[in-house]
């Protein structure tokens, strides 16, 4: 096959039936406020680790719901707490991150 230097991008479709939601459910049981996130992105905007590892609590919650890996994002989280100060919904973000780390 001719190599054009690019290819068709892989489908981004997520088969929700195949997704393992166990981690998300477990985290939600321990940090109920994870469910009230409205994905506004205040946490992403204020995040100290975002420039280094793409950290964003919003994306972490989303990734958990999609059964995707969150390790890369979490790997630079400094727990500084800016996300919890910025969150308009009152998600206990620091506890969420620590709980995810404990359960991974």
């Amino acid at each position, binding site marked *: 096959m001719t190599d054009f230097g690019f290819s068709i991008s892989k489908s981004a479709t997520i088969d929700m039936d195949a997704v393992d939601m166990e981690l998300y459910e477990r985290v939600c049981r321990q*940090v109920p*406020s994870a469910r009230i996130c409205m994905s506004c992105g205040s946490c992403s905007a*204020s995040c*100290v680790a975002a*420039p*280094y*590892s793409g950290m964003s609590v919003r994306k972490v919650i989303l990734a958990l719901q999609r059964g995707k890996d969150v*390790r890369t994002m*979490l*790997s*630079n*989280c*400094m*727990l*500084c*707490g*800016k996300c919890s*100060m*910025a969150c308009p919904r*009152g998600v*206990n973000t*620091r*506890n969420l991150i*620590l709980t*995810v*780390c*404990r*359960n*991974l």
Partner: protein
Amino acid sequence: MIDRIPSGFHPFVIPFLLGMAFVLGYCAFGLFRIIKQLSWKERRKLAVSLITPETVVKNIRDIFCDCLFHVKLWKRNKLLGYMHSSIAFGWFMLIVLGHLEVILFVPKRINLFYYPIFFNYFVAEDEITLRGSLLFFLMDFFLLVVLSGIVLAMIKRVSSRLFGMRRTARPSFLNLVGLYALWAIFPLRLLAESFTAHISGGSFLTIPANWVFRQFLGNELNMLPTWWAYSIALGVFMCVLPFTRYMHIPAEMLLIPMRNAGLKMVDARKGFTRVQVLSCPNCGVCVDACPMSANRANLKDCTVYLTRQVRRGNERRIEQISDKCLMCGKCKEVCQVGVDGAQLRLMQRARRQYGFSPDFSNLPQSQIISSSSQKNEKVLYFGGCMTQLTPAIGKSVESILRKSGVDYEWMDREGGICCGRPLYTAGRTREAEQLVQKNQEIIKNSGAKVLLVSCPICYKMFLEHYDLNDIRVVHYVPFMLDFIASGKIQLIQSEVSYVFHDPCELGRGCGMYDEPRQLLKRVAQIREAEKNREMSVCCGGSLGSLSLDFAQREKITRASLDNLCGSGADAIATACPLCKTTFSRYSDRPVRDLAEIVDELIIDN
């Protein structure tokens, strides 16, 4: 005084002897175990301090002041102070005087362990005993002192509010057994000594009681039962002592030398930590002090319950309690024994297992290029994460630096890395250490001589965990005071009155109480809140807490605001960006950082 019973023994002393043997055996074994748990270094430290004359004197003084006279408690609350010291010191004197009586009157019995305790049963008065009347008087006097303490304790049990305590810790079942046994000991002793007073002699308390009882009871029949009851009460108390809060009596005597030797908590459960846990007297002073007590649901999350759960080994509750704490350090401040609740929780957090740990090796290395002009010492300003979230503070600090003509550089203007304290207080010490290394490198490479900080959280971290060679770490408050003293900035006086909120990390954390007030006094009127300085109430936004949710935090913030607003000031001043953000959310009056206030009032030249 002559021996009444030739054998010098009566079966009623057996319960006491059993109890005593048990408690001494338990304590000896416990002491051995704790010493074994200490590291070799700690053991050496302790041994050295025990032979150094200064620390020995300090130990003895502390044991007398804290364990017997309860000096710290007196200073805080006279009634509670009297209650505790009357029981402790009175009981101590009863034991000492008991021994003195035995030595003076029946010296051959001194080898009998129980003799000083049951002295009055075993002896009879004769002509020459009158010389002992002073001793008899003292015995009765101290018994009265102890009894007055017991009466106060009973009143306190019914209504702790009379003693200035809104809430106390709920005693567990065994604690109640110990409590009632302790209450029973002294009235029973009075009865027993009164029934025997016509034989053994007595003083102003026992002789009249003896006379009264003779009128309608007949003393001979009641003598033995009361002595039995007295001995049994003692026996029961000592048998339950190791499993109740009364363990704090022997534990505190070990805690004081260990603390004076400079030992620190290094393990979650063992060694010095164990001694701290056992030393908690469950008095419940920390319940009222804890900022979380603004929520009814959090009443059982204060230090007294943590020590109890650690003793019980209830891991689920230990985790809950230690994760919730705001780490404001107030419980340590009010604790009479000096149990360090925050540190104890930190130890529990540090032993949690994590399936995944962050790694910061990919963070960029130092970007700051040394641009030091040689004539002035360069100031490196570190705002920290919280200052980035409250840009007004950072701008004000920068503006003040510019106006005072200092050579400065803003280390994290474009965003930097965290100082590491949040990770550290979450118990992730090793990860925090990585951040410390990164920042240390940046700071050292910057060529600055002074590291200026506007966030007390970072300030405490820099002071305690960073090794910055000769770079001075200062919070901006004393730095600005220097500017004012040296005339670098001139200020006008404002008409606004401020109440100053002591941030936990700056006040209790770093001991800085006077400087912010001095600074505030230079520019405005200052009012004091009811609970200020060491007693200041956490704003509720603390990063120390991991699991406290927002609704609970809000109540804490409101309680703290009530305390501040009670002073009637126009506005609230603080010196911590986190406190400012938290208060601003719910406050009905402006909340401002000292830097903002000062910057506004500088006279521009």
